[in-house]
């Protein structure tokens, strides 16, 4: 049976993890390759690297770091953040990323998804959607969640899949950083509308929160702080999920 995935997310600027990773009883890890390796060894089903600087120079540093990680880690690696062209996608795939996540640039120019999917296959094109509750629904935000768009997030999710996205990474801007749980209604709504896997993001504070997101229909739950701060180990999260009958690796 296909397992649900638990994914730690590393915020990387150039070649460094911005928020350091503190494993229980271990030193702070600021080197992203080491942090990715440590998470893979600790049971992570996938690693997401979020590039939080978009300059060209930093993009080269990111590619070089991805190359080092890709050679060493033995779980899948998804890279996203500031990807604005098919050339970026190509460079990251050549560096060894298994999947590349696009966000703002794809909302502004949805053909980006189509071009990348046609060239490299849907299975390596992830569309990240930053959603915030507005009125009775959700709007898609861009530029790291700073800019509201006129696009309904749920409708955009469907369109992104029609364009060829093989996976959606759905972040609730309302829940992000608050650690009170994922936006389950958002996850249920989107997973009910699209045929591709959905990764839940934003709001993880406890292992039960990740299990809630997976029960709501997400194929994977992504978290940053609870793992980086050493609050919970990946295996603790998986144990809670297993106890609730979710299929875990």
């Amino acid at each position, binding site marked *: *049976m*296909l*397992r*649900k*995935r638990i994914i730690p997310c590393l915020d990387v600027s150039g070649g460094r993890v911005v928020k350091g990773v503190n494993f229980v009883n271990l030193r702070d890890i600021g080197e992203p390759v080491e942090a990715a390796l440590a998470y*893979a060894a600790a049971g992570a*089903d996938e690693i997401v690297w979020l590039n939080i600087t978009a300059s060209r120079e930093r993009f080269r540093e990111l590619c070089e770091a991805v*190359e080092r990680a*890709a*050679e*060493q880690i*033995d*779980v*899948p690696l998804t890279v996203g953040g500031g990807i604005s062209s098919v050339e970026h996608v190509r460079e990251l*795939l*050549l*560096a*060894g*990323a*298994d*999947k590349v996540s696009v966000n703002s640039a794809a909302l502004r120019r949805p053909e980006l998804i189509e071009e990348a999917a046609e*060239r*490299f*296959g*849907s*299975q*390596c094109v992830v569309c990240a959607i930053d959603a915030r509750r507005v009125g009775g629904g959700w709007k898609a935000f861009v530029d790291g969640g700073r800019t509201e768009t006129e696009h309904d997030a749920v409708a955009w999710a469907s369109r992104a899949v029609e364009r060829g996205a*093989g*996976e959606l990474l759905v972040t609730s801007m309302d829940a992000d950083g608050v650690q009170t749980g994922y936006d389950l209604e958002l996850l249920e709504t989107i997973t009910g509308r699209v*045929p*591709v*896997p959905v990764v839940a993001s934003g709001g993880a504070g406890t292992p039960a929160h990740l299990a809630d997101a997976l029960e709501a229909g997400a*194929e*994977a739950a992504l978290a940053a702080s609870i793992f980086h701060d050493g609050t919970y180990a990946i295996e603790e999260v998986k144990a809670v999920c297993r106890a609730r009958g979710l299929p875990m*690796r």
Partner: protein
Amino acid sequence: MIATFVDYEAGNLRSLRAAFERAGAAVEVTQNPHAIASARLIVIPGVGAAASAMAALHEHGLVQPIVAAARRGAHVFGVCVGMQLLFAHSGEGDVDGLALLPGTVTRLTGARRLPHMGWNDVQPLRAHALASALPATCYFAHSFAVQDADPACVVASTPVERGAFASLVALDRVAGAQFHPERSSSAGAALLRDVVAWASDADAA
């Protein structure tokens, strides 16, 4: 053991190459038809869509050297789309493959969601030199699969909600994995060690 990687410029070879090196192989990456024709272990990495991958193989004049090497008794191992290319035909772009294995590649049916993305069971159906680490849980990322394969070439299969597909195939010296061994943690590493041993044993024989 030298693993000769077919470089058809369709994408990243880095991860798979590093994983083969960890498994004890020396890796040679080439587009040279002569190097491929004389290789003992040919590895066909797989990325992108079957049609564009086959087109790239044709463009580089690599189809005949691979087929000739297989007929001569070289070991051939394909990964993901590289495994799919071993079969006679793929519905992804309606393209003929290398036809080293009987069967066709079609859009995966019976899965909860497509692409079939994530970790799933690889369940052995019989004993085989490549199955020492099975059963295991391995990483998949694909929408097409082999679901009608001749049982003679299916070493292991993987269940979806309704049905299953061939996840590890082998017939004589031609084999392949639908999952990504380079991304399948210790089980993937064990498979690649098996591949190196499988190709090496025949050298001694």
